[in-house]
């Protein structure tokens, strides 16, 4: 049902082709991706608010949340993410296999806004100031988590396969 809600919330600037595409995606999610499994919920807003985008924080009593990707370890989600990576034109800016171009590479060990699943999730949902558009109104949480699965895999030794941990970003001078 969630999928239907975001679909109907599309604004009028959206091109008919996109609506058609989103309809396809809706069908895709409901038909295949979620067959037999519970629909992942949007991450808890309070937890997301506590997610650090950078590396530093003012000390506090609780540690930042360790937000898991609900699709962690799921190869189907990585494959769905790859489809979305093309269909939503991520591929145009970040290049096939994440080599980069108009947008930064996703295949290297530099993560300007963090490589944790929730950090990547936030970058896609919110957009980023140097030109990454916000996909908040274009994709449901399920699809964004699938993209997170695929995008993080690009930086691993086995792109296209589920990845658990990535090394921390080595440099962030981009």
């Amino acid at each position, binding site marked *: 049902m969630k999928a239907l809600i975001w679909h109907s919330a599309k604004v009028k600037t959206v091109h008919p082709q996109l609506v058609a595409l989103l309809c396809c995606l809706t069908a895709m999610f409901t038909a295949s991706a979620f067959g037999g499994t519970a629909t992942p919920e949007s991450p808890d807003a309070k937890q997301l608010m506590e997610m650090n985008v950078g590396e530093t924080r003012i000390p506090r009593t609780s540690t930042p949340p360790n937000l898991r990707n609900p699709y962690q370890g799921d190869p189907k989600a990585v494959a769905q993410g790859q489809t979305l990576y093309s269909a939503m034109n991520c591929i145009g800016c970040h290049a096939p296999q994440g080599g*980069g171009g108009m947008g*930064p590479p996703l295949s290297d060990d530099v993560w300007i806004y963090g490589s944790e699943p929730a950090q990547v999730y936030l970058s896609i949902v919110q957009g980023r100031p140097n*030109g990454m558009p916000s996909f908040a109104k274009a994709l449901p949480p399920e699809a964004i988590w699938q993209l997170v699965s695929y995008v993080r895999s690009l930086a691993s030794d086995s792109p296209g396969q589920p990845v658990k941990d990535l090394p921390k970003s080595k440099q962030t001078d981009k």
Partner: protein
Amino acid sequence: MSRICRLLPVVILALSATMLHAGPQPAQNIDGQWLMPAKDHAGTRYSELNQITAGNVKQLQVAWTFSTGLTAGHEAAPLVVNNTMYLVTPYPNYLYALDLSKNGELKWTYKPNPARASQGVACCDVVNRGSVYADGKIIYNTLDAHTVAVDAGTGKEMWKTRLGDINIGETMTMAPLVVRDKVLVGNSGGEMGVRGWIAALDVKTGKQLWRAFSTGPDKEVMIGTDFKPFYKSDQGRDLGVTTWPPDQWKTGGGNVWGWITYDPEANLIYYGTANPGPWNPEQRPGDNKWTSSVFARNPDTGMAKWALQYNPHDLHDYDGVNEHVLVDLYIKGKKRKALIHPERNGFMYVMDRLTGELLSAEPFVYNTSIHHIDLQTGKPVLNPEKEPKEGVKVNDICPASPGGKDWQPSAYSPRTRLLYVPHNHLCMDVTASKASYIAGTPYLGMQVAMDKGPGKYGGLFTGWDPVAGKKVWDIKERFPVWSGALVTAADIVFYGTMDRWFKAVDAKTGKELWKFRTGSGIVGQPITYRGPDGRQYVAIFGGVGGWAGAVVSGKLDTSIPFGALGFVNAMKDLPDVTGPGGTLYVFALPDRQP
């Protein structure tokens, strides 16, 4: 139209011819200034200055330098006006004024504060190709699709006009051209499905006077009864609509991000339009007019006089935006008012600039995608084996998407009668796929991996005889020659290379006379000027980047061939020889030299 109206253009023509007395031949302007990137309206980049000669060029040394602190590609030409040099940087598009009577002392800096997000919708690095001086103002475009005019004396903003919307992927990177009281500008965004246009603004106020789109109905393309294209396939009504699947012209590209030139006698401007969108040609059956075309227009009314589509139904991102250099040539013993256009598709077009008739079109680079240009139809005869198909990898398409030559502008010398062409030697493998239009994101549908051409070098610098239709000499370079060219009355040609050389070569033979090792690779446009001390200076931006150099300026991943729309694969070794970083270099002969 009344008779008076019909006569008006003739009167204007006569007036402009006498007032400007600058025929399309290089202006005999030896005041030593540099007021527009191409030096003159004809686009020659030819300077009458001749102190620096083949005999003394070896003594050239650095007079002073200036750092911008920026790491994107520095493609702009400096301007020199009233003993002041003006520099436009890549994003954030600062304008620096440097006092030449005080060895380049900084007078002021103007900051237009373009939207940060514009960086993310610029296809090929966040470059700017320069400014123009007119009416006491320095005028240029910002990446976030504004045109600004700045008081040349004080650095105060005089006007700023918003022309496009970055939310649909529209940016501006080209250098404006000023014709009398009109500022001519165009947009970028062909990789984002942005509809192309050229606009004229009032030099006094920045107010838009007309805007001509490259696609759509004749009314919006500003095609009227005066439109007389030479070739049959360019004749007909509303071709900007009928040569597309329904409504696709609205997202069809044809952007105007290259060079504009002007013939005051004919009172016509000349400019090219860019590739159609999406790149995947299977999604847009038809000729896709008026993408990858040249237009001749009346700058006063905006109305088109003629057009020719270089690449109907473009298959390989062959934009038509390269310069149209306006010169009079003796062809088959007859004087022709010609234009020379080194087209991205790898052929050197020589045309009658009054009628649009094609006089010759000879290949200037290695080519597998086009057999030849048919002079009867004006169209390329394609190699069908190189046509991209969805899901099929097509190999060894030459030239690659950046073409036999990209934006990097040529120079023409009326002394040697040669065109000096900085260009590419690249091939590519492509796989097409279905692209979906989402406003503000890339609209491509093509996986590209380029490589250096046969012989494994990436670029050439060529001395070309446009009358004979053949090269006189060329110099092989490791990387695409992504800098502009400059030629002087002492028959010296200057250009820069991406592997950090600034070179002077003999205009007649191509023999290397001098070179200087710069801090970063060169993708800028060299200029020359006479300083307040009477000496001749040569200036060039170093600072690698642009589409070709994005692998360095954007720190792209060299292990993946598809980065920067496939350019990375041909430039994997660029990070081995240069880092990024913008510095202006100014050269002169030692002080005691006469």
